[in-house]
């Protein structure tokens, strides 16, 4: 469904990605593993259109979307839960969720369903998003992405900076989210979790894919090797 082909990316003279190929199928969960600076966030920012690339480097349902603006890509059904949540501080919890629905894609998810998934957000709907705990903010960020009724969600560093108990809660909620016919591309530092939640995984090192395959055959040792770029 989502295909990335020979993707390269530059920050000025610095090349961050050296021809990445990856694919996410329908209802598939794929994890992207790699150390800091390996190019995970760059890949996600390029797929969502925040960084420029050639039209044919990113395909969505077979159509080139690499040249589109971020808002056009969002309307196609690609949502992102960005690293560090990045909620809108001057918007309340509910406004943060409502703005997710700005893309006008009707579907399963709406305010009521998001509040059912994360009841604590319903209790705090009128609070400023900055007054929530890190875990609750991550719930808002996930809810905001769901409100767009996307077909795929990109989760960037889903558990970074969260307490272990909160990470468990988020991971308990994930299957409910994905079972509603969503695909997901997940960036996760915890290799064990990354392999457990996903059907397939890719390892990224210094802007190149060093390992890919089904999580039923790839072991943590394989990943550690690829992780350190051996």
């Amino acid at each position: 469904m989502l295909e990335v082909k020979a993707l390269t990316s530059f920050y000025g003279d610095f090349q961050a990605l050296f021809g990445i190929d990856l694919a996410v199928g329908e209802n598939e969960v794929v994890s992207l593993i790699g150390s800091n600076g390996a190019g995970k966030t760059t890949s996600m920012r390029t797929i969502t259109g925040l960084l420029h690339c050639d039209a044919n480097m990113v395909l969505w349902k077979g159509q080139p979307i690499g040249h589109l603006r971020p808002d056009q890509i969002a309307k196609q059904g690609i949502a992102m839960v960005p690293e560090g949540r990045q909620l809108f501080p001057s918007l309340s919890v509910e406004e943060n969720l409502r703005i997710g629905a700005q893309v006008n894609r009707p579907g399963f998810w709406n305010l009521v369903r998001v509040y059912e998934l994360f009841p604590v957000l319903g209790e705090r709907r009128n609070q400023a998003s900055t007054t929530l705990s890190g875990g609750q903010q991550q719930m808002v960020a996930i809810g905001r992405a769901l409100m767009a009724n996307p077909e795929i969600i990109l989760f960037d560093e889903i558990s970074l900076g969260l307490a272990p108990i909160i990470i468990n809660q988020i991971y308990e909620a994930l299957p409910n989210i994905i079972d509603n016919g969503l695909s997901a591309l997940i960036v996760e530092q915890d290799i064990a979790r990354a392999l457990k939640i996903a059907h397939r995984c890719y390892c990224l090192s210094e802007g190149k894919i060093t390992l890919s395959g089904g999580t039923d055959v790839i072991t943590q040792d394989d990943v550690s090797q690829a992780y350190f770029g051996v």
Partner: protein
Amino acid sequence: MVWVNSILQGVLLGGLYALFAAGLSLIFGIMRLVNIAHGDLIVLAAFLGLVVTSSLDIHPLASLVVVVPAMALLGYLLQYLLLNRTMSDDILPPLLVTFGLSVILQNVMLETFSADPQKMNTGALDTASITVGALHIGVLPLLMFAVAIAVIAGLQWLFYHTAIGRAFRATSDNADIAQLMGLNKKHVFSLAMALSLAVVAIAGIFLGTKTSFDPSSGPARLIFGFEAVIIGGLGNLWGTLFGGIILGVAQGIGAQIHPGLQQLAGHLVFLILLAIRPNGLFPRVAH
């Protein structure tokens, strides 16, 4: 009683300054754009009002029906076709471009309308007043003040109770992530400029009915606008109204002491407040 009177006139004048400032504050708040041409756009709106008023033979306030949408359209196009090309993390390029725009506007207006001061005649409204005890309150300044409050209340409502207001705030917070919500940054920015120039249109018409104006009156309006915004605190519209009032009252009191002190008193109060409260009296959030 003269003092009460000059304070009251200052308060009413503050409404006009708040109108000058509101559009300036709005676009700075949403897209960190410092519009140096803001004052010249106010004067342009006044000239546009003059043209509409004289060619259609209508009351200056009725010309708002034409001038407000015309200026809003101009704002949208200006942002979409020109200023969006200058927008980046660096706030200097748009500042320089609007500075150039200011020079161009002044000269085009000079070529078109000559340097003669103009004023729009509001007929009976020019001299109408209400007498309260020993005070005489002009109906036009009172109307101006009421409109300023209505405009600021309207903007406040728009910002906090509508989808477009939510989009403005989200874009102001984080333009990148706002795009991921399906908001086209360029369109949102252009709408913000359209809204800003709609307010400029109202400010321009009131400027033209209250006092005389000529193609070089813009920069002084810009200064008053800036001062009101900064006194009130960036990003706070009610603060901007209050900033306008402080400026107006300072000028009123200054003029009462000595006519030559009118402008100076306003600037002095601004400088004093800037020294003791650099973030203004009611800053919204720290950026």
